[in-house]
């Protein structure tokens, strides 16, 4: 068996924790905890990026890492916490699918992702190519999180977690996107967050609740 260097092992551990956190988010029903998990995911991403930067000596990855730290670990969770306090939504209502069922679907998704990533990973020349499957899994799991939640707030958390997965995917496949793209994405996420914050207030004003169930009445009747 080939010996894996220590830093790479550390990197793989980070990836595993990232996946674990995704599953935790899938099961978590308290919104405050969900945001904390998101922050933790961001932190893992930060550590992974730092490790990769140190290992490959690519300087722009340091900038990426700083961006991740600033935006995903500090700014966005803080913003979300403020919103939660102002909107007074600590709890999500019952998810659409029970937790064990969601977990089973998540497991199938992970298997699917690894099967999917294998042919791509063989093409990639990066040291981190094995974590590509994890990145795809994180994206799809975040998607499932969005599907099974009813509150608008949890949907946003799912959306941000999806972005984390994308970031991790880009990093493990090609050592990160070009700097300009990364800046653009970061700005997009920030702006999306702000816009969604405005939407939250609008939705609550309209329906007295953040439950997306209410939006069904917007559907055009036949």
């Amino acid at each position, binding site marked *: 068996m080939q010996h894996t260097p220590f830093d790479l092992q550390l990197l793989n551990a980070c990836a595993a924790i990232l996946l674990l956190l995704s599953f935790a988010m899938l099961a978590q029903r308290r919104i405050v905890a969900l945001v904390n998990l998101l922050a933790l995911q961001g932190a893992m991403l930060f550590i992974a990026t730092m490790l990769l930067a140190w290992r490959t000596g690519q300087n722009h990855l340091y900038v990426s890492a700083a961006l991740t730290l600033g935006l995903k670990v500090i700014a966005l969770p803080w913003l979300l916490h403020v919103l939660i306090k102002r909107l007074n939504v600590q709890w999500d209502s019952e998810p*659409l699918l029970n937790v064990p069922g969601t977990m089973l679907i998540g497991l199938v998704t992970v298997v*699917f992702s690894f099967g*999917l990533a294998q*042919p*791509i990973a063989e093409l990639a020349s990066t040291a981190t190519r094995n974590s590509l499957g994890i990145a*795809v899994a994180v994206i*799809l799991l975040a*998607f*499932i999180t*969005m*599907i*099974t*939640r*009813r509150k608008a707030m949890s*949907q946003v958390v799912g959306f941000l977690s999806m972005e984390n997965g994308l970031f991790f995917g880009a990093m493990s496949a090609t050592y990160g996107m070009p700097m300009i793209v990364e800046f653009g994405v970061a700005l997009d996420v920030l702006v999306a967050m702000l816009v969604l914050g405005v939407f939250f207030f609008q939705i609550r004003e309209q329906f007295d609740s953040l439950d*997306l*169930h209410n*939006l*069904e*009445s*917007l*559907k*055009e009747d*036949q």
Partner: protein
Amino acid sequence: MVGAVGLLRPHSVALVRRVLFPLGALIGVALAIVAALSLTEPVEQATLHIGLPDLPMHVRLDNLSRVFLALLGSASAGVSLFAAGYFRKGEGTAPGVLGLQYHLFLASMGFVLVADDAYAFMVAWETMALTSYFLVTAQHGIPEIRSAGFLYLLMAHVGAIAILLSFGILQGGTWLFSFDAMRASTLSTPWATAAFLLALFGFGAKAGLLPLHVWLPEAHPAAPSPVSALMSGVMLKTAIYGVLRVTFDLIGDPLWWWGLIPLGLGLATAIFGVVFAAVQTDMKRLLAYSSVENIGVLFTGIGLAIVFHGVGMTELAALALIAVLYHSLNHAFMKSLLFLGTGAVLHATGERNLGRLGGLIHRMPWAAWLTLVGVLAIAGLPPLNGFVSEWLLLQTFLFSHEVPQPFVNMLLPLGAAIVALAAALAGYVMVKFFGIVFLGQPRESSLAAAHDVGGFEKAGLVWLAIGCVLLGLLPRQVIHSLAAATEQLTGAAPNLAGQSWWLLAPLTERDVSYAPLVLLAVIVAVVVATFLIVRVVYRRPVRLAAPWDCGCGRLDPRMQDTAEGFGQPIRHIFVSFFAMERDLPSPHDLAPRYRVKVSDRLWQGAYLPIADLLQRAANSVAWLQQGRISVYLTYSFITLVVLLAVML
């Protein structure tokens, strides 16, 4: 040439139309003259590098295009002149915008005629459909007009899809969509048949062939009169052009039995159109159904030409095609003239309902007399133009017994009887149209305020009326020009050499001939002689007395024959054509009201079931729209997973 028309950029100032529409008319005349003069010249081709990169548009000017361009230019010149005086402020779309749409419509029709690849053709064809849609819905404030416009747009697009599919077959696996490639490719019989049928369906929808005619009687009354005139007079002819182009040029050698399909449909359309025209009470609907009839006659001619061409009788095929081209030209002039006449009446009185018109010949002599020319022409009376083309078609029919196919050669001559019946009924319809609108006494007191047409309108009507007369009096010269196109399509042309210039004998002088000038001279001579005999020989003073009123005591306009009354015999004889709803008042009713609603059986029989089916299919798709974000997200998720699994 054509681009110049499209380059007109009207501003939204009402006065500009006084300059722009006459300018458009001038360009039309120039176009007609250039096209007509270049008829015998060789084919010209060009490639325009416009539109998408690496997809240049090919244009080609051959004799078939030239004939139809001459038609477009000359007929639209009259309509444009009329339109210069017609469009006014405050009626739906602003005149400036209307002017832009109008000229774009003209330019796109011109481009359809010169397009030489499927891409350019479809772009021009769709532009034509869209601009005419906006013109039809110029008065979009009225719900009926909007729904008429929708029906028109729907039919236009269904037709366009069929045309597109037809081109898709015609490229024959080469994936080259220029018409040259289509000419070169050879198709197996089933594929060629499919291409022909699709083209017939597509262009038939535009022309108003029988099951697809429903948009015509809705769209024409909805559109402003110059637009109806253009649509009926010119746009329908682009569909005829399309059928001829695909059948004789792109497919090349049509099988003889294909011709039976347009022949049968054309005959049915002709009878159907004229019978429905006879029972209409709205003058523009009446003219729209009359257009349906004429389209039927044209398709009959096309069918005959295909049959003759398919069995190798190219001389007769050329003659049938000449009848088609000639009738297209005639119909462009006379139907435009009539639609413009109704436009003049509509502006003067605000009425389209025949039951509220009457006696307008005193108020609007110019409009009335010029319309009379169109009425006589479309009724097929010599020496005007409608007679010549219908006569040619009938002559062609009389030779159809020589087709070497059993049964077909027995049944085809019967078609001549149907064409003759349609022509006779067309005369009946036109008597109704002219008699009720212009003759008799005004049925409403408001008609006394009607005013005659203005200068531009008069000029437009006169131009078209002169066209009708000249096309009737000089058939030999016209046929000589049209022969250039038939020679291109069928390789044969009627042999007119060695015949006297005033005589028209399409086959041999021994068989049949027609001399319009002589006929005109005889008519004039008889009229003058009668006049002289009455005035000079008979010489009694004219006694004036009140007309006999059957002892009733007074005569009022309500005693005149009405539009319903005039059409009643037709409604009775052809009762199986109609779906009728009738309320007959009881004899004891003191305020009796008679109501009859005549509608098309095809609506209930074909269109409503299809619409119903589509509605149900659409509803069954609608459950996808659940209104729940999680469901929509699931859709995205499934799509993503499936795509990932398939692509990798």
